[in-house]
């Protein structure tokens, strides 16, 4: 039984994350918990001091608890296995508290929601954050909820180590889902179209592992282009798998253009 935690806020992105996890949960044995890291007050705002401030902070926290609880409850109507939220008390940085919860809870997967944006700034912030750099467990960044039949695209710049493939298959052992590998070379200017080039080595171990587990690999291609000329290749999948790219790197730019949900593995 996989232990999945969804980090939620009271917003649409979190609803998408919940619906995505619940869709996975219909095909896989998994517990689906929700967590919310409470903040003492709105950042950058300071209301008085002492008792007045404490009262205000408590009210903000209480309001957030109610909003998140209500949001999770409304999603539970369509997903019975969704558990009530756990609230992480205010304190250290949100990322640290979530990472600690994941470790203590022995979570196999963290799901977070993020609305896809044309502007890449928020995505870059996300992949540059401490949580994504440290990756206490695989993180799934849910942006949209397409059907499973759209398959999985695994993007890399070359090597995909076997343990990474093992981690993927451990999480999503779904032989019926079609898997494609896209090896990206970012050697062309944006004005030129992306071109398929001769395959390079680096993913054989991952491929053989998935094949031996009964996975269904539909296609392996190596493409030379730029993030913008390759954008169409990452547009129409149930899930795109990758390691966490360096913020503002060509791979991060490519992934920022994908409206698909992204699974980051180490």
């Amino acid at each position, binding site marked *: 039984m996989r232990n999945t935690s969804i980090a939620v806020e009271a917003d*649409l992105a979190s609803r998408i994350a919940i619906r995505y996890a619940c869709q996975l949960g219909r095909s896989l044995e998994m517990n689906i918990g929700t967590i919310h890291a409470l903040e003492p007050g709105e950042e950058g705002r300071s209301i008085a001091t002492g008792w007045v401030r404490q009262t205000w902070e408590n009210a903000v926290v209480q309001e957030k608890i109610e909003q998140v609880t209500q949001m999770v409850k409304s999603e539970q109507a369509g997903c019975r296995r969704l558990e009530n939220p756990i609230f992480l008390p205010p304190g250290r940085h949100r990322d640290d508290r979530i990472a600690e919860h994941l470790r203590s809870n022995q979570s196999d997967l963290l799901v977070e929601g993020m*609305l*896809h944006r*044309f*502007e890449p700034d928020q995505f870059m912030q996300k992949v540059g954050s401490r949580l994504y750099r440290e990756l206490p467990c695989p993180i799934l960044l849910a942006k949209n909820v397409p059907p499973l039949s759209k398959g999985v695209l695994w993007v890399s710049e070359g090597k995909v180590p076997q343990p990474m493939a093992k981690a993927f298959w451990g999480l999503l052992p779904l032989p019926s889902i079609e898997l494609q590998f896209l090896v990206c070379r970012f050697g062309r200017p944006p004005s030129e179209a992306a071109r398929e080039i001769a395959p390079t080595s680096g993913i054989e171990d991952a491929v053989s592992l998935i094949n031996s587990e009964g996975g269904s690999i539909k296609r392996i291609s190596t493409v030379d282009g730029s993030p913008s000329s390759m954008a169409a290749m990452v*547009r129409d999948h149930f899930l795109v798998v990758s390691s966490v790219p360096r913020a503002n790197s060509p791979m991060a730019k490519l992934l920022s253009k994908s*409206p698909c949900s992204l699974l980051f593995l180490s």
Partner: protein
Amino acid sequence: MRILVALDQDTRSAHTLSQVTRLLVNTWANVTLLGIVPRTSGDGGVSPDFVATMHQYHQAVLEGFDAGDRPYAPADEDYEIAEIRPGVFEKMGRAAGGIKELTVRIRVGDPTQAILEEAQDCGSDLIVLHGDMDSRQKIATKADCSVLIVKEQRDTGRILCFLDDDLLSQKSLEMITQMAVLFNAEIEIAGLTDKQPQEGTIESKLDWLMRYFNRKGIQPWVQLVALSSLEEFILKEDHWSLVTMWIGETSIFKRLFSVNKVAKLLQSRKSSVLLLR
């Protein structure tokens, strides 16, 4: 629903009509095929050649249906063109039957005025015209109903709906659903936003729309686009068969449509455009 299809003798009219026929097969809408004859120095009449073209268009619509599944009366080969009002001609046949109306009319005069007057007369919910009609910009701006500007065949499997603060009518949502069927496409919804407080409203609408389309068995793709990036977005992400936008009273596009670069940009793209009211 009543659809008004504005046609001329350009080959693009035939393509437009084939698209509309697919829509009619799905909706069984009442339809008016309106031939536009710009006023010339002649006697204000209609040439036999143009009448024959309109008859062919009439037959082409009917041929789009299976014989036993046709809601319109058959096209009579023994027909007449009668001037029902000055400058307005209607094809009259003896064939009866049909549970829906298919009217064939020809108007002589200024194309913009002719199309807008006919839309008003027949109470159309949707005006359809091809993307090279000179009057498309004026009609798009002045019409009281939705307008579909059909461009060349482009089956990318995606249609884009721009979403802003404007109100969404049930009719317009049904029209988008029909378009998704017509173009055999998935729906992308782009919420336009620029300010933080606005995002909450747009998110609520996105959520509502997702649920609406989910109930119809459609899983839309959602995203946010800053208004300041709109031009770049249209230029760089140009991968849609159809772009739709609401242009109600409070819509960004209503405010900007006649002057903004966005309208010109969309004209220069290959996507068809649906303006919803």
